[in-house]
């Protein structure tokens, strides 16, 4: 008798992942182990008036560890102890980091949001006193200044960083070790030293007065190590087979690099540039020493003092009035927003590329 096999696809059943099914005993004990320690801790804080942080460490953590170990033993036997401890440690410490990051973001957003308005973003700071109400004046000049100063640095640093990375990955140069050590040392350079160096070179020596471009120069040593190292990593990830494939087709080394290696490393290099920008956009000390500050919008990066977001923030915190501190928070939020925009646009740019290629 011929057997007919039905080959039409059927909808995926809900039970298609039998390995993720948990027994009721596990669910109940896991829920108990999560709720009871938290409840006891809250009781200590609420009823006995214990300090929250102290309760977290003295009461919550030990009880949670014991509870987790008990659940581990009851479900898996002895090997369950270490497993459940690992779970507790992972969750506890990662949520600690998460809370840390979240609280920074929250304080900037909640304090800064009050200052944000069209006038704050688009107007400059001319005629504004530290005590002036938030309805007037803003960080427009500082946004322009930050973008110009960091933009000029980026234009200079990216080719330098790329060249360094190419030297480290694509050539058989003899001084790679020294270059790498120098880059590491440069990454540890305090930003104020970089600013001081440029100040002594160009400003104290009388070559120029405070100007945007001196700030850009001071940011280069801070940005270069990040750009060079991240670019190096992404070039290193391009498989040697691709390079060899290009060379075997009769490509000169520079064409093999420009047309095969570079496109393959493109998204990594974009990340390198963005990390570099993010690294320096909040730098204050080098700019205070080199661009100083300004209340008017200055579009010429090659002449005259220039305002920037970090120096604006620093200045207004220093004034210490209510209104001025609000402006400082606003400037901090604007920096965060600019960094977020940069990161999101970089992600989108590299994603559209991969999507188009699917």
């Amino acid at each position, binding site marked *: 008798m011929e057997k007919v096999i039905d080959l039409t696809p059927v909808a995926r059943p809900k039970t298609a992942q039998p390995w993720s099914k948990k027994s009721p005993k596990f669910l109940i004990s896991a829920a108990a182990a999560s709720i009871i320690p938290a409840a006891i801790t809250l009781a200590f804080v609420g009823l006995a008036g214990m300090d929250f942080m102290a309760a977290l460490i003295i009461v919550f953590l030990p009880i949670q560890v014991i509870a987790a170990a008990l659940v581990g033993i009851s479900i898996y036997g002895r090997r369950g102890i270490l497993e459940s401890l690992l779970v507790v440690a992972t969750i506890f410490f990662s949520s600690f980091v998460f809370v840390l990051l979240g609280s920074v973001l929250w304080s900037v957003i909640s304090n800064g949001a009050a200052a944000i308005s069209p006038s704050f973003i688009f107007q400059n700071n001319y005629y504004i006193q530290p005590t002036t109400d938030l309805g007037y004046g803003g960080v427009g000049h500082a946004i322009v200044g930050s973008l110009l100063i960091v933009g000029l640095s980026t234009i200079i640093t990216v080719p330098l960083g790329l060249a360094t990375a190419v030297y480290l990955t694509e050539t058989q140069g003899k001084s790679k070790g020294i270059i790498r050590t120098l880059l590491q040392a440069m990454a540890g350079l305090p930003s104020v030293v970089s600013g001081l160096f440029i100040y002594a070179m160009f400003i104290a020596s009388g070559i120029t007065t405070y100007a945007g471009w001196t700030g850009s120069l001071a940011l280069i040593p801070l940005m270069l190590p990040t750009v060079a190292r991240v670019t190096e990593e992404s070039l290193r990830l391009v498989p040697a087979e691709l390079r060899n494939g290009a060379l*075997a087709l*009769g*490509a000169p080394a520079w*064409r093999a690099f420009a047309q095969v290696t570079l*496109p393959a490393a493109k998204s990594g290099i974009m990340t390198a540039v963005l990390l570099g920008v993010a690294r320096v956009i909040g730098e204050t000390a080098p700019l205070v020493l080199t661009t100083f500050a300004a209340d008017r919008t200055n579009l010429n990066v090659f002449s005259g003092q220039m305002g920037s977001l970090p120096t604006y923030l620093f200045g207004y915190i220093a004034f210490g009035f209510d209104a001025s501190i609000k402006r400082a928070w606003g400037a901090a939020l604007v920096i965060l927003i600019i960094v977020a925009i940069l990161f999101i646009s970089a992600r989108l740019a590299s994603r559209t590329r991969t999507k188009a290629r699917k």
Partner: protein
Amino acid sequence: MSNLTYHLRAEDVNVWFGERHVLKDVNLAFPSNQVTALIGPSGCGKSTFIRTLNRMHELIPSAGFGGKVLLDEEDIYGDGVDPVKVRLKVGMVFQKPNPFPTMSIQENVLSGLKLSGRKNSNTEELVETSLRRASIWNEVKDRLNDPALSLSGGQQQRLCIARSLAMGPEVLLMDEPCSALDPGSTRRVEETILELAPEMTIVIVTHNMQQAQRVADQTAFFLSEDGNPGHVVEFGATEQVFEQPIDPRTNDYVNGHFG
């Protein structure tokens, strides 16, 4: 064999990596428009040798070389010879398919032209003939603009062959071109080799003895014993090397007694 012309000849080729001598006094002559297989156990230097034939070998920083490789009677290691020009005439297909991931199928075929800075007015025709010669045209003709990585491994390897063919090489070197492929794809690559053979000189490294017998006119057996440098034990017509080997070590190897 006396009426054969030799397109490519290796004379006293020696190779070192650092201080280690890995290939000693290799003398091989590759007849024009025939297929020559290089066989031998792993580590015997056959892959290293094939790389000396288009100067890919020198990309390894510690590499050293002695001897001559004559392409049309001109030493490719001679003074002032540009390795880039050598590689334009001597194409290479690698063990692992390596299409360029950021390019489409069509762009991959044309990549050699772009990479060597050449112009070609009739690119459409070149794409079609190259893909046809690599026997992959029918599979990809409707999706030339798809990314190269959307192809299967066997198709990618034939695309790489097409990419080399688009450059019009006189010699094609293949370094274990089928070792990453399934039997079906292997068969198609072998068919491609046999179709190409009348037009160009082909040198193929292979671990697969049946493959050597199926595609090669000549076979050279490489061996490296007891840490000594690799060398050619036996070289001759494929049939003779497999059926009536002169050297007992060749006999042992082709009959599967070691390696």
